[in-house]
């Protein structure tokens, strides 16, 4: 059986191998369009002393705002549609429509309708994510145990207790899926929104360095952001998921 050390070693070796391949390719091409890892690291150190954290912070705040909004609204819609067949018949089509609406169209429309503002940016990102959350939670609500629902009815559990003890624990895996997918989608859309209409944030910086053809800085921002999202995944979402599922065999 693999020890924890060897389980951790393989991904590290694999990533090290990728860095070696990258270094080899960069040396072979010998062009600024593919800088080697050391150059990217130097670009990161340079950016870190010139407002990197401010831009990263601005993007993270937008991600947090849009993510929270999308999870709250999407969950409410999903639960309503999953619990009411009539509501699903009436509004299920809306979900399909919004799911297939290109993210870029939503962003442009929000900027046109609300101006190049923070509200427009966050709204555009949230609108793109809400249908995904709603679809996931609708499925969760459809799978809610009728047996437990009847038990709660017979034992006259107040609705707050039903939500806390009966409904939400059943939805925990669906929340985890929606949160994980949501985070991955939201931060990507936030970068595009910033690229199109904000004057700070990682997306804005990426646009700036694209114009300057500074690939090392672009990669420095990209890797920094990937690192932050991984910290959220392994520091927040995964522990919460383990906590929510600790009762399972």
């Amino acid at each position, binding site marked *: 059986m693999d020890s924890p050390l060897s389980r951790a070693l393989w991904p590290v070796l694999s990533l090290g191998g990728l860095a070696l391949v990258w270094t080899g390719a960069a040396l072979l091409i010998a062009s600024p369009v593919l800088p080697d890892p050391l150059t990217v690291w130097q670009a990161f150190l340079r950016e870190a002393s010139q407002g990197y954290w401010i831009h990263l912070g601005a993007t993270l705040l937008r991600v947090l705002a849009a993510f929270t909004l999308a999870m709250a609204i999407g969950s409410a819609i999903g639960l309503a549609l999953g619990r009411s067949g009539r509501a699903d018949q009436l509004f299920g089509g809306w979900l399909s429509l919004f799911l297939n609406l290109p993210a870029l169209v939503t962003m442009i429309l929000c900027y046109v309708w609300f101006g190049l503002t923070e509200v427009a940016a966050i709204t555009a990102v949230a609108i793109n994510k809400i249908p995904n959350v709603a679809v996931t939670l609708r499925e969760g609500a459809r799978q809610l145990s009728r047996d437990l629902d*009847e038990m709660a009815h017979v*034992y006259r559990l107040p609705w707050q207790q039903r939500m806390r003890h009966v409904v939400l624990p059943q939805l925990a895996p669906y929340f985890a899926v929606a949160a994980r997918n949501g985070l991955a989608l939201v931060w990507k859309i936030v970068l595009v929104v910033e690229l199109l209409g904000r004057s700070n944030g990682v997306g804005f910086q990426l646009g700036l360095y694209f114009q300057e053809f500074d690939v090392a800085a672009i990669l420095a921002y990209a890797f920094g952001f990937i690192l932050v999202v991984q910290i959220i995944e392994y520091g927040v979402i995964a522990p919460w998921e383990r906590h929510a599922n600790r009762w399972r065999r």
Partner: protein
Amino acid sequence: MGASCQPVAPVSVLGVEIAEKAFEGAPVLRDLRFDLAEGEVAALLGPSGCGKTTLLSLIAGLDTDFAGRIERPEGALAVVFQNPRLLPWRSLAQNIALIPGSGGMARARELLNAVGLAEAADQHPEKVSLGMQRRAALARALAMRPSLVLMDEPLVSLDAENVGVMRGLIRGLLAESGATALITTHDRREALALADRVLEIGDTPARMLRDRRSPLDREERRNTEDVEALYRAWFSDPARAAE
């Protein structure tokens, strides 16, 4: 020994008058009428699939789509479901403590102790046997001090040892609480071992076939562990023989 020994309380706790219950136009229950007196323990006896659980759902108010009338008690009504329906993400004690009026964790532990589960109070349902889950569900039902307890096949799928334990607990705890109870079963021996009265339903749609008092009183049933003897006593009863 005999029906004349039974203490019959005059107050009716449950009144059932089902003209008809149908699923998608197909009648399942028809012309079922009976009352249960306060403190009475009745068995609803019938073959599997005849509509016993459906009748229990109607009485519990889980299904209101039927022709007829059901008068339920003023106080709490509890159901011991065939599948115990414990919350898998809560411990056995928490499952009981969250019921309104249960008295919290301290009383939950007392009740679990009463059903022999003191050691398992902090275990989650999936980590204990079906027999233990059933006992916890029985404790949960009694936690709200119900006027009426409905039990759906409480002994089915249990091994012989657990059947004996559960049967003893049902008899003892119901007697102690004084609650009225209706217990569904497909097993005549089980009905006789548990109930003051046996309501036998059958046919399609199910109707009342027999409504008879047990030939043994509670004390005799408690002291008689040999269910076969109860079974023979039932058949030796002259009223039964005349049927």
